[in-house]
C-alpha cells in the first residue's frame, strides 16, 4: 500500500522540492506564473501526504522530509498581500492613525497625568526651595546657569551659533529614541514607561521653577514652547503606547497573558510609530525657529499652533470615511 503511495506521489514531492529550492535561492520572482500556480496547487495535496505518511507509519526520515517540505510551502504561500507602501502610509495617516489615537485616548490621558504630576511636583519643590533644582538636572546639564547669565538676552540666543539642520537631526533622533524606549519599556508592566514620563515631566517642571525663581519665566517659556508643545505631545503619545502594553501585561482580563500582550502590542506599536512625523516637525522647529530672532510672542503662538494643528487633526480625521478599515492595519 505504501509502495503505491510512494510510487504515485514521489514525483510530486520532487517537483515541489525543486520549485521551493529555486524560491529559496533566487526568490519568488524566479518562478513563472504557471509555476506559482502549480506550487499553490501542489501544496494542499502535499499537506495531505504528510497526514497519509503518518497514517501509513512511513519511516521517520521520509516523514520528516515531507513535513519539512510542507512547512516550507506553508511559509511561502501564507504570506501577507503586498500593498503599495506609499498608499498604505497615506491611508495610515489619513484614516487609521487618527482612529487609533482616539481609541487609545484613555492611555494618553493617563500618560499626560503622570507627566504633569511629575512636572508640577518638581516645579513646586523648586519654587519652595530653589536649591532643589539641582536634584532634578542631570549632571551633564551645565548650560542652565550659563543661560541665566544671559538674562538680558534671549535664552535661545545661545543656540544661534549652531547650524539648524545639524541640531534638528540630532534632536529628532534623540527624541524618537526616547519615544521608542517609552514604548518598549511598557513590557516591564508599564513601570519603565512610567519612569520615563515622570523623569521628563520632572525635568521640565524643575526648569520652569528654576527660571521662575530668577524672574525669567517669559524667556524660558518662549524658548520651550515653539518646539516643546509638540514634542511633549508626541512623547505623551509614546508613553500612552507603553502604558497600553503595560496594561495588557498586568491585566490580561479573560484571555491569557500572552494573548493579551499580543493584542496590546499590536495596538500600541502603530500608536508609537505614528509619532515619527510629529518628532520630525518638532525637531525642525527646534533647529530653525526656536533659535531664530523672531519675536518671542510669535514663537509662543507658533508653538501652540504646532501642537494644536496635529491634535485637532487627530481628533477629527477619519471619522466620516465611509469605506470600512481595520483599526490596526495588517
Amino acid at each position, binding site marked *: 500500500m*505504501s*509502495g503505491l503511495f*510512494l*510510487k504515485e506521489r*514521489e514525483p510530486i514531492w520532487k517537483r515541489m*522540492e525543486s520549485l521551493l529550492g529555486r524560491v529559496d535561492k533566487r526568490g519568488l520572482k524566479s518562478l513563472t506564473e504557471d509555476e506559482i500556480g502549480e506550487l499553490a496547487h501542489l501544496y*494542499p495535496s502535499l*499537506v*495531505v501526504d*504528510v*497526514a497519509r505518511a503518518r497514517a*501509513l*507509519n*512511513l*519511516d521517520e*526520515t*521520509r516523514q*520528516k*522530509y515531507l*513535513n*519539512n517540505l*510542507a*512547512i*516550507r510551502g*506553508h*511559509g511561502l504561500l*501564507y*504570506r*501577507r498581500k503586498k500593498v503599495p507602501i506609499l498608499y498604505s502610509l497615506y491611508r495610515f495617516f489619513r484614516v487609521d492613525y487618527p482612529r487609533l489615537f482616539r481609541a487609545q485616548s484613555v492611555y494618553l490621558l493617563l500618560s499626560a497625568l503622570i507627566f504633569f504630576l511629575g512636572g508640577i511636583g518638581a516645579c513646586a519643590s523648586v519654587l519652595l526651595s530653589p536649591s532643589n533644582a539641582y536634584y532634578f538636572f542631570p549632571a551633564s546639564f551645565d548650560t542652565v546657569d550659563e543661560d541665566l547669565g544671559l538674562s538680558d538676552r534671549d535664552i535661545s540666543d545661545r543656540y544661534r*551659533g549652531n*547650524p*539648524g*539642520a*545639524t541640531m534638528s*537631526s*540630532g534632536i*529628532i*533622533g534623540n527624541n*524618537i*529614541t526616547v519615544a*521608542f*524606549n517609552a*514604548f*518598549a*519599556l511598557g*513590557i*516591564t508592566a508599564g513601570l*519603565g514607561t512610567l519612569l520615563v514620563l515622570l523623569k521628563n515631566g520632572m525635568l521640565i517642571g524643575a526648569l520652569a521653577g528654576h527660571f521662575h525663581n530668577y524672574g525669567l519665566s517669559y524667556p524660558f517659556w518662549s524658548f520651550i514652547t515653539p518646539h516643546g508643545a509638540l514634542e511633549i505631545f508626541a512623547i505623551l503619545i509614546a508613553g500612552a503606547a507603553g502604558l497600553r*502594553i503595560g496594561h495588557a501585561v498586568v491585566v490580561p482580563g479573560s484571555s491569557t497573558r*500572552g494573548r493579551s*500582550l*499580543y493584542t*496590546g*502590542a*499590536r495596538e500600541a*506599536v*502603530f500608536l*508609537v*510609530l505614528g509619532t515619527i512625523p510629529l518628532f520630525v516637525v518638532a525637531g525642525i522647529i527646534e533647529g530653525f525657529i526656536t533659535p531664530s530672532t523672531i519675536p518671542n510672542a510669535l514663537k509662543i503662538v507658533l508653538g501652540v499652533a504646532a501642537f494644536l494643528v496635529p491634535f485637532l487633526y487627530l481628533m477629527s480625521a477619519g471619522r466620516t470615511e465611509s469605506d470600512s478599515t481595520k483599526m490596526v492595519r*495588517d
Partner: protein
Amino acid sequence: MLEFDRIETPQNVELIRPLAGMGTRLFAGLIDQLLFVLVLVFLYIFIALFYATNPIQYMRTMYEVNSLLFSFLILLFFTIYWGYYMFFEFFWNGQSIGKRYMKIRVVKQEGGAVEFSEIAIRNLIRVVDGLMFYLVAGASMFFSERVQRLGDLAAGTVVVSEQEPVSKVSSDESFTAVATNGKAPAALQDYGITPELYRTLKSYCERRNQFEPQARMALLPKLISLLLQQAGEAMDDALVKRLQEPVTKDLYKLHEEILVLILEQIEKEDSASPAGGEETL
C-alpha cells in the same frame, strides 16, 4: 522550552515546525550585532571627525554644505540604529543577515510570514531584550514555551530553524531504497513478514531501553503474536517455542533478545541474497 512547535494548516493537518535553539539564535545575533555595531561605530567616528574638523570658522557656504551632510549622517545613524533589523526582516521575509546565515527565520506563531506590525514590535522591544547584554532575552527564551524573547512574545512570533533535515542526502537517492533502510525486501518476503511489521519490530528493538518495563511487557505479546502469525512457519521451531512462552518480568528481556536475533538473521540473509528484488513496498 520546546524544540518543536506545531502548526495547524487549513487542510487540518498538523505540521511540525523545528524552532531555532538559543545557541543558534545567539550566533545569528552575534553576526548581526557585529555588523550593526561596526557600521554604527564607523558612522560615529565619521561624525566625530566631522565635528572636530568642522569648527565654526569655516566659510559660510562650506559650512552650510557640511552641516547638511553632517545632519544627514546623524539621521543615518538613528535610522540604522532603529531600522537595521526592521528593514531586513521586512524585505527578507523574517530574516536578517545573521539569521539568513544561520538558516533561521522569524514567522508568525500561528504559521505564515511575519507582517510589518510584528516586525516593528519585536524589534522595538529589542531594547528591553538587549538589557544586560541580552540576558533579559536569554531568560525569556529559557522560560518561554517556544524559545521566545520578550519581543517575540509581544509580537506573537517564533524563530524557526530552516536547516535541511538530516535526510537531505537520502532524498536524492531512490525513495524506495530508503523506505526499507536499504534492505532488499526479498528476505522479508521469504519469511512472510510485512514491511510495516518489520519496521515496527526494528524500531521497538532499537528503542526498547527508553521504555518502562511495564510498557514493554504490555507491547511484547502483541508484537510476538503478530510475528508468529506472519512468519511462524518460516521460523526455527526452537525459537517459536521460546517466543510462545509467557512474557513475564524475568523473561521479557529474553524475548526481546530473540526478536533482535531474528531481525539480525533477516538482515544477514538480505545482504547474502542479491540486492534489489521485487518492489513490495
